[in-house]
């Protein structure tokens, strides 16, 4: 493979720009060989380097409060909840693979996010899925929906994590680019947290778990490119998930951490071996000498290029403590998993990869990684015309709706509002015996065993609002997810986010991105919910569709005492119904406007963040005083739909409501 002559043209084909190719030459002091070029191309792809977003992401509130690690430092966010426990949580996207092969795309998305959690030593205790598809009447949408839901269910159910919450939207904008965001939440004792770091000269480096094949090579770059016929042909075969192997990997990983046998561990996600070796080394400002001949392979005569870039699933990189090699091997043997020493840590900032005794690649580890040598760009933006045009449309003269009963029924049966138990009944949401509030309510509530506490988790984002007004739409997304967890009695404490946008090199798209980040920053400061990390997914567009800008918020709330846990539905006759907050004639971008007039326009609702925070604090104190029997957040469909939901959700008893 290395005989291939590396030219600028080859670098461009690998997705690197001319400047980036020059930058590589500067780091190496020479022209990179084919394998080294592949490493830079995948590590500097949008997916791994965040080069077009990190500059703005850094402006978000990313520390303070209960955070134990700074966002981006580790594989997932980590929040202290007292009693010696911390919660690890994160959300990630697997949009492009799911558009190609929905079942495996979604399944490997769940597998990847679960590994991000247990690589920190945390046992996953909840999973959520935030999905967006095209119009439900379109057969392709039905095919994708069926595949994605079955993939998420089969993986989560077999692995043994309850899938407890999420949301799904059907909008024309997602027709060619479905969004499949998977979130996972884990619990870890604060004295058992594992780091994704490599240090200590001579410490052994292991690859553990499944064998390596040619799955998903260019997977990382594939995710950062528009879905066009060209990318269709170039992608190599699809990644396949094995939840059974992942469950064994979980148990073995937690065991070696518990027995204090390792220095650091990281899961292998995008860009497989090259990503984990470079990121772990850069964090410990050390390097590694790796012999690729020792990597267990699933296919024969794989080149160094393919082994380094392969994204085969259910694999981890472990840096063990010198002298503990046998004990580490014994743990993996117990769980019938492969565990092979493939090299060792070296002092200086250098990665050396050997194959058949030949030095195939020699690269400074820090030069590859985000925060190190990866490029950082400040893109320009331009406010699109549609923004002023659509938000200035006057909606006060819409034709009067006569039959309100029919109108409510029509709204309740719209795909975005109707009951989703067809989906979550395919998920095991009670495994783990911690699920107190089950799917279908405002947020899921998971009790923490051996404490009196519980956590509330929810994902939220109204793509239409963010399209019409990215800044205020994102504020609304954060506020809504905070209100949802507050309705269960939980104090909002931190968020993760999955930013699904179009092409960052398009100025108008980047304006949407910049505005969304601004809105998220303001809201997170007021709600005191720092951003613990997350994921950016650009290029969610194709020839004739660009997705709505969709910054999905994953909110974590804390319930100090399980007696405060509150569900959403009406309980008993004679209970009083209160509406907190003000109502204004705002139907811009509403579900009502879409269902009845098929329009997505108008100014979206105003939001006063300070008032929202005050509203949430009041609701929580009312709950803590024991005055509240149920609480439900008003969102899509407004008051009428919310009242109807409060009645319908009570499975055990027929109940109604009288409103004046």
């Amino acid at each position, binding site marked *: 493979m290395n005989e291939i002559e590396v030219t600028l043209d080859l670098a461009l084909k690998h997705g690197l720009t001319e400047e980036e190719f020059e930058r590589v030459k500067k780091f190496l002091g020479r022209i990179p060989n084919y394998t080294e070029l592949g490493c830079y191309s995948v590590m500097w792809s949008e997916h791994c380097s965040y080069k077009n977003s990190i500059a703005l992401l850094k402006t978000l509130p990313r520390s303070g409060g209960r955070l134990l690690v700074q966002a981006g430092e580790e594989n997932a966010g980590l929040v202290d909840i007292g009693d010696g426990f911390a919660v690890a949580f994160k959300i990630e996207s697997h949009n492009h693979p799911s558009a190609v092969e929905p079942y495996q795309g979604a399944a490997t998305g769940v597998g990847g996010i679960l590994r991000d959690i247990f690589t920190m030593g945390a046992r996953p205790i909840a999973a959520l899925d935030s999905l967006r598809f095209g119009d439900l009447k379109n057969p392709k949408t039905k095919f994708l929906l069926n595949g994605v839901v079955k993939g998420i269910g089969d993986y989560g159910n077999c692995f043994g994590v309850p899938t407890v919450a999420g949301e799904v939207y059907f909008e024309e904008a997602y027709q060619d680019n479905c969004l499949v965001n998977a979130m996972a939440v884990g619990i870890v004792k604060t004295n058992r947290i594992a780091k994704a770091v490599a240090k200590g000269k001579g410490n052994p480096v292991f690859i553990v778990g499944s064998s390596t*094949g040619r799955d998903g090579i260019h997977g990382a770059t594939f995710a950062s490119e528009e879905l066009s016929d060209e990318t269709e042909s170039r992608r190599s075969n699809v990644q396949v998930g094995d939840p*059974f192997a992942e469950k064994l990997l979980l148990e073995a990983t937690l065991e070696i951490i518990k027995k204090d046998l390792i220095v650091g561990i990281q899961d292998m996600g995008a860009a497989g071996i090259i990503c984990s070796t470079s990121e772990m080394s850069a964090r410990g400002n050390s390097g590694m000498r790796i012999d690729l001949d020792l990597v267990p392979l699933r296919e024969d005569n794989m080149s160094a290029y393919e082994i380094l870039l392969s994204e085969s699933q259910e694999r981890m990189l472990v840096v063990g403590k010198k002298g503990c090699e046998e004990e580490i091997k014994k743990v993996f043997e117990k769980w019938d998993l492969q565990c092979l020493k493939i090299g060792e840590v070296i002092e200086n900032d250098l990665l050396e990869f050997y194959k058949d005794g030949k030095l195939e690649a020699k690269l400074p580890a820090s030069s590859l990684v985000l925060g190190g040598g990866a490029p950082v760009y400040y893109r320009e933006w331009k406010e699109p015309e549609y923004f002023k045009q659509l938000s200035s449309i006057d909606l006060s003269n819409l034709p009067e709706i006569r039959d309100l009963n029919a109108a409510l029924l029509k709204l309740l049966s719209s795909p975005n509002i109707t009951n989703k138990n067809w989906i979550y009944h395919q998920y095991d949401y009670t495994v783990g015996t911690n699920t107190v509030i089950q799917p279908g309510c405002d947020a899921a509530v998971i009790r923490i065993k051996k404490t009196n506490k519980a956590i509330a988790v929810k994902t939220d984002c109204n793509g239409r609002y963010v399209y019409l007004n990215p800044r205020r739409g994102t504020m609304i997304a954060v506020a809504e997810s905070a209100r949802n967890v507050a309705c269960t009695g939980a104090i909002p404490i931190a968020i993760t986010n999955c930013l699904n946008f179009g092409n960052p090199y398009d100025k108008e798209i980047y304006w949407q991105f910049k505005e969304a980040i601004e809105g998220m920053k303001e809201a997170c400061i007021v709600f005191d919910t720092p951003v613990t990390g997350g994921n950016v997914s650009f290029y969610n567009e194709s020839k004739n569709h660009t997705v709505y800008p969709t910054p999905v918020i994953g909110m974590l709330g804390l319930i100090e005492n399980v007696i405060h846990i509150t569900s959403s539905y009406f309980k008993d006759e004679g209970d009083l119904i209160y509406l907190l907050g003000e109502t204004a004639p705002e139907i811009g971008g509403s579900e009502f406007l879409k269902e009845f007039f098929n329009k997505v326009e108008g100014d979206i609702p105003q939001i006063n963040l300070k008032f929202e925070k005050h509203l949430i604090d009041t609701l929580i104190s009312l709950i803590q005083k024991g005055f509240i029997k149920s609480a439900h957040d008003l969102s899509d469909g407004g008051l009428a739909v919310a009242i109807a939901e409060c009645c319908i959700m009570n499975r055990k008893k027929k109940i109604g409501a009288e409103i004046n």
Partner: protein
Amino acid sequence: MFKAKIFIKRRRTILDPQGKAVELGIKSLGFENIKNVRIDKFIEFEIDEVDEEKVRNEVDKICDSLLANPHLEDYYFELEKI
């Protein structure tokens, strides 16, 4: 009337977790000399049609559009006159 016998086989380069687990099971029975276990699908059905050529096209279309997942599987079939 024809009988179609269709083999849906997962492409050899794509991971077969089921094959891996069954290999583990066979070995736990004490048969160490086994390798490359693959689990695939075998589908049969009858087609009420006389012209073999037409049957061949029909079965081909059914496999291509429904029975086999183009990203993961290949297929081949035999026809038997009954």
